[in-house]
């Protein structure tokens, strides 16, 4: 049996504010295998990026974390120092390239510094940049001289430079034109085909459909559906997933009615119920994720009754 690249079990993250507690991630469990590309999708603010930051130990001081996250069955990502793990074994393509790049260093200096720190020759900089579709000529520019898409590609190059076996890519295609989106996605896919693992955090359902083996849908801090990609797009099980798919411009282009709940005041039951046409009294209790969807009234028959 293959050793999972990452096992997350019952992960819960809370942020203490002065007057409230933010339920950012709740009871999240997932397993990702070597060679697998898992896409995590959902509305903005549902906890996708917090999940990424938790796995890299990048949470602020007001965060409390419980549960378990283990890399290659030998390294806990929630306890202890992550020196030697962060960057080298778990890479991150950050969501905001504008704030992730050191503004006083050129792209070349940033990339060479990363390569050197991970024992690779500085002369690899041009090749690593070219791999992500970043023209090496532009490496001599400072971050403020790069377009949003160019900065995004530079961040991807920096994350890939140490060749981490697990890469968490948080919205790596934002601001890229379609050929570059496809180029980046193909690059991630090739990494998985070579035995590495990628968690692709994205709101771009088309991107997820193109390269992911599996898609996990998050809503209000929880995973509400986890299915193989083709099955999820053909027969979504959770009403929220169906709503997201219907919002695509080439489908209905209709927003899911209502707004996501406040993460400081989540209901005891299903958080999607106030926006759901199928909701009834049963939804006042939290459904289990025993089939593909965490729902009392799934759109497809659950393999195991909730």
């Amino acid at each position, binding site marked *: 049996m293959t050793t999972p690249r990452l096992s997350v079990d019952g992960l819960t993250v809370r*942020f203490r*504010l002065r007057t*409230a507690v*933010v339920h950012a991630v709740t009871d999240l469990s997932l397993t990702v295998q070597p060679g697998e590309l898992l896409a995590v*999708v*959902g*509305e*903005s*603010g549902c906890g996708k*990026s917090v999940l990424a930051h938790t796995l890299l130990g990048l949470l602020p001081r007001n965060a409390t974390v419980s549960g378990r996250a283990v890399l290659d069955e030998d390294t806990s990502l929630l306890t202890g120092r992550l020196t030697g793990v962060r960057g080298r074994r778990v890479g991150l393509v950050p*969501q*905001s390239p*504008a*704030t992730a790049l050191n503004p006083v260093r050129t792209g070349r200096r940033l990339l060479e510094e990363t390569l050197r720190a991970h024992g690779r020759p500085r002369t690899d900089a041009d090749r690593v940049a070219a791999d992500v579709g970043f023209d090496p000529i*532009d490496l001599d520019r400072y971050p403020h*001289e*790069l*377009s*949003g*898409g*160019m900065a995004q*590609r530079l961040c991807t190059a920096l994350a890939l430079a140490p060749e981490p076996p697990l890469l968490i890519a948080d*919205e790596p295609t*934002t*601001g*890229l*034109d*379609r*050929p*570059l*989106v496809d180029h980046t996605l193909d690059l991630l896919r090739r990494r998985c085909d070579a035995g590495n693992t990628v968690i692709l955090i994205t*709101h771009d*359902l088309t991107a997820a459909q193109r390269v992911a083996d599996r898609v996990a849908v998050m809503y209000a801090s929880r995973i509400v559906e986890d299915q193989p990609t083709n099955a999820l797009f053909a027969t979504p099980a959770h009403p929220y997933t169906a*709503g*997201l*798919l219907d*919002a*695509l*411009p*080439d489908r209905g*282009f*209709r*927003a*899911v009615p209502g*707004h*996501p*709940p*406040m*993460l*400081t*005041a989540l209901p005891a039951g299903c958080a999607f119920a106030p926006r759901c046409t199928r909701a009834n009294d049963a939804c006042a209790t939290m459904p289990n994720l025993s089939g593909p969807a965490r729902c009392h009234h799934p759109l497809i028959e659950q393999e195991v009754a909730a």
Partner: protein
Amino acid sequence: MSELAAHGVSVAYGRQRVLDQLSLHIGAGETVGLRGASGGGKSTLVRVLALVQAADAGHVSLDGVRITGARHHVPAAARTRIGVLFQSPRGATDPRLRLDDIVAEPLRATGYPDAAVRERVSELADLVGLTPDLLIRRPHAISDGQLQRACLARALAHRPGYLLCDEATAMLDASTQAHVARVLTDYQLESGAGILVVSHDQPLLTRWADRVIDLQPQTHEHRHAATSV
């Protein structure tokens, strides 16, 4: 003539010319899509049209009146007629301010009555889907998508005649994207505003824009070609 237009605009960064004698117009009540390669000058064009960046050559006109040239003298009244949603909300917001103050910025800057600011902010927050608990947070404590919704509320606050959306929905999920498109379309129907939608997402532009302009990659040998698609 009700339109926001660029006339022969050129911009270079050092030796690299990103816009070369580019002309385009956005009519009142019209939604114009703009697409093009990453790094091809789309965001530069938005900044020039938004009157926050001077062009090296050419000028911008608002309703037929030339309002800026290479010297970049811009009447304040012209600025208030243009709303912008930038590509990166983190770079476009003051990290020290709470979201409700960020949304209120253009209201206070344009002399909106103090007593009515809170009510208008609340109305805008409701429109874009920002819950009250988010309004009291600062940018570092919310997601990029939530911050972009605050920027949308800010862009609409002073009821601009033209709205420039630079990849404004690129970081939003499909549902929020559809919601933002609906909010902007409703605002356009109500106000007659002209909207420029910069996006790489062809299905989105096909669905949303009245016409789409393709910004061709720049070469030193060719002038910028803005081709209607």
